[in-house]
């Protein structure tokens, strides 16, 4: 089993409560099982008993939002997010993935990538962006998720196949630089794409000067997976915006499930609850402008909590906040 590779994490986390305050899903479901401790207990029990995954355990693993805020917080950085992805992989390989997961995976496997436009830089349009989000002067690649979503769902072989298609399309484009506003795809490409420079849009777009104050919501994949808290903030500051601290702290995930890539498609009720929690922390819902570096986060917050104003960093850079 793949969770065998995480026995150090299981042993460290199964009786440890030190990061539970950062369990984004646990903070809205209030369930002990929705914390790194709870999930480590479940995986540990699986290893102990060597039995099939209990359906309740499977549901729990697919409720995880994979923000990795807990791993980022832990003084020893035990890989609780990696453990859940390993458990999902074991579930899939055992043929035990729930129907809704299988259906979503089947949809994601349909990805076919096309490149259009002209330019020396390639811009990737993810599932939650549109071509209109792309900066001018770039070629555009689109057609589905890069395989990251399949990977976090536990469909690793299928993710490889989609990734191979994506990689081939990138190579065929002839571009040496690829840019995306999607932090999850950025994470995937940064770690796996050979022969091309990978940039998040916050590291690429120039933007035009603006004014006013904004609240920046950290992206899980930029902050917790790539230790990048600064690029989006630096861009906003460079453009002239005053940055205000959102919520009560910088440790919690305020991305509404970005870590799980397609969380809203799998767990729409929980995505809505995560959005409600974020909306509840807005100082002035009528006037505050929230900025996210994640198209996913923009999408779900706009969908479930339309009473608050949420903009993508890229659109702020190009159009301002009015």
């Amino acid at each position, binding site marked *: 089993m793949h969770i065998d590779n995480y026995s150090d994490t299981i042993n460290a986390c199964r009786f440890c409560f030190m990061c539970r*305050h950062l369990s984004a899903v646990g903070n809205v479901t209030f369930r002990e099982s929705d914390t790194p401790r709870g999930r480590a207990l479940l995986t540990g029990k699986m290893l102990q008993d060597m039995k099939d995954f*209990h359906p309740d355990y499977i549901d729990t693993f697919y409720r995880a939002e994979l923000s990795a805020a807990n791993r980022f917080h832990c003084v020893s950085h035990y890989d609780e997010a990696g453990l859940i992805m390993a458990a999902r992989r074991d579930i899939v390989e055992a043929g035990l993935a729930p129907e809704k997961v299988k259906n979503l995976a089947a949809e994601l496997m349909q990805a076919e990538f096309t490149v259009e436009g002209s330019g020396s830089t390639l811009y990737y349009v993810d599932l939650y962006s549109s071509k209109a989000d792309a900066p001018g002067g770039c070629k555009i690649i689109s057609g589905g998720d890069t395989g990251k979503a399949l990977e976090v769902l536990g469909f690793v072989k299928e993710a490889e196949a989609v990734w191979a298609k994506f990689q081939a399309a990138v190579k065929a484009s002839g571009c040496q630089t690829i840019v995306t506003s999607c932090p999850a795809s950025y994470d995937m490409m940064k770690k796996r794409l050979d022969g091309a420079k990978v940039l998040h849009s916050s590291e690429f777009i120039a933007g035009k000067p603006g004014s006013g104050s904004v609240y920046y919501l950290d992206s899980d994949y930029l902050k917790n997976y790539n230790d990048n808290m600064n690029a989006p903030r630096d861009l906003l500051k460079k453009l002239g915006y005053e940055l205000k601290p959102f919520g009560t702290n910088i440790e919690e995930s305020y991305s509404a499930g970005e870590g799980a890539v397609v969380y809203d498609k799998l767990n729409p009720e929980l995505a809505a609850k995560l959005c409600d929690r974020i909306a509840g922390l807005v100082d002035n819902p009528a006037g505050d402008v929230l900025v996210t570096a994640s198209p996913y986060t923009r999408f779900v917050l706009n969908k479930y909590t339309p009473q608050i104003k949420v903009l993508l960093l890229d659109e702020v850079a190009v159009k301002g906040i009015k």
Partner: protein
Amino acid sequence: MIAKKENYLLSMLHSELADAVGREYVSGNAADQLGHSIDYYWIPEMWHDRGRENPKPDFIVHPGSAEEVAKVMKIANQYKIPVTPWGGGSGSQGGALPIYGGIILDTKRMNKVLAVDTESLTVTAETGINTQHLEWAVEKAGFSTMHFPASIACATLGGFLAHRGTGVLSTKYGKIEDMVMSVEVVTPTGEIINTLPVPRHASGPDLTMIYLGSEGTLGVITKVTMKIHPIPETRKFHAFLFKDMHEAMAAGANIMRSRLHPCVIRLYDEPETAKLIKRVLNIDKQGAYLVFGFDGPEKIVDLEMEEACKICRKQEHEDLGTEMGQAWWDHRYKFFYPPYMFHLPQAFGTLDTVATFANIEKVYWAMKNAVNAKFPEAVFIGHFSHWYEWGAMLYARFIVENPPQDPHEATLYYNSIWDLAIRAAIREGGVINEHHGVGLKLGRLMKELYGPAFNVLGGIKKALDPNNIMNPGKMGF
């Protein structure tokens, strides 16, 4: 008592609980049952590690208000079902374990900050709130609870109230019971009551204090108003190394007897200095490490710090300076993260107790000598981390590398260390616990500790909880 699984009465009960709190807030699923069958107590951890089943709740219920808690209480009384309140589940005494099954009443859904009174400097909050979340919210308003336990991120506010918890700045700001103004409680029979709005009065006995430390045996605390404090202008630390614990204790006690107001004093005995201070802070020294801090207006802090240092320098010492003191503060929680915290297969326990300055060293040596004599394989270490005008708290710990593998044998072995050490503490003027509570772990020793006075506690329990549904089997009830 609870019906058997195959009995339709269980589904009937599920319906009633769902009607009380909402269907999505009642669970009997296997993942949640496992999560609620283990807290931070060594016995259920060991039991689980050995592949045994811990007692599990039949239902986990998440009420969203005092009114919903009251409904659950009435249902439980109707069917005479055990109700075990659960906050963060991070208690070390087994106080939240559902040892007789029944209902786990998980309070975490009651997590709102209701009001910050900037005139009186109080905050009112629901007790299911995670204490780190509470502190962050209070800090956003420009204040602090000054409640900084190592478990701040693990536990709920209600958990601290239930077992009289404490934080690292308790020497100045008090234990949780010193921070409370008033509480709202749902009684075991389902009435919602409030204690008086202020903690100092001559309007009868202090009802609030009956509930603080009652560990869910007398009701469920659902709301609290507690003191908050301005963020201090500065907080500074200083560390000394003394040749032994006795010298360091003299320094610490003299600081307290001088009536200076340190926010923290922490003294590590020689074995803990050699083991943990070296490992976590990388201070590789022989002796007893003492750190203290002051906070408030800088001028006053500097003056108090100077006086405290003068007191320390009267003992045989090595001055480690401010940097080695600040390092302790910066890493104060690191001790409790894996792999720094003790862990299975080790057996370990925290024998925290408290006594007057006249007795505290006698308590330390009585516990240590008793454990060392009968269990030479056990390592006994300790530090003193909460100081009062009259005495100090001893946070003693024992660690056994290879306890018995058989879980029954391991339980007997483990409990015999506890019995021996706690009885030694009681004989020298200590008590069975200072800030972790009693729970399942120490309930059997309550009658010994209290003597005939335990009948008073028993009478209160019987009067408030006639069907004994509230957290049965805990605190000696």
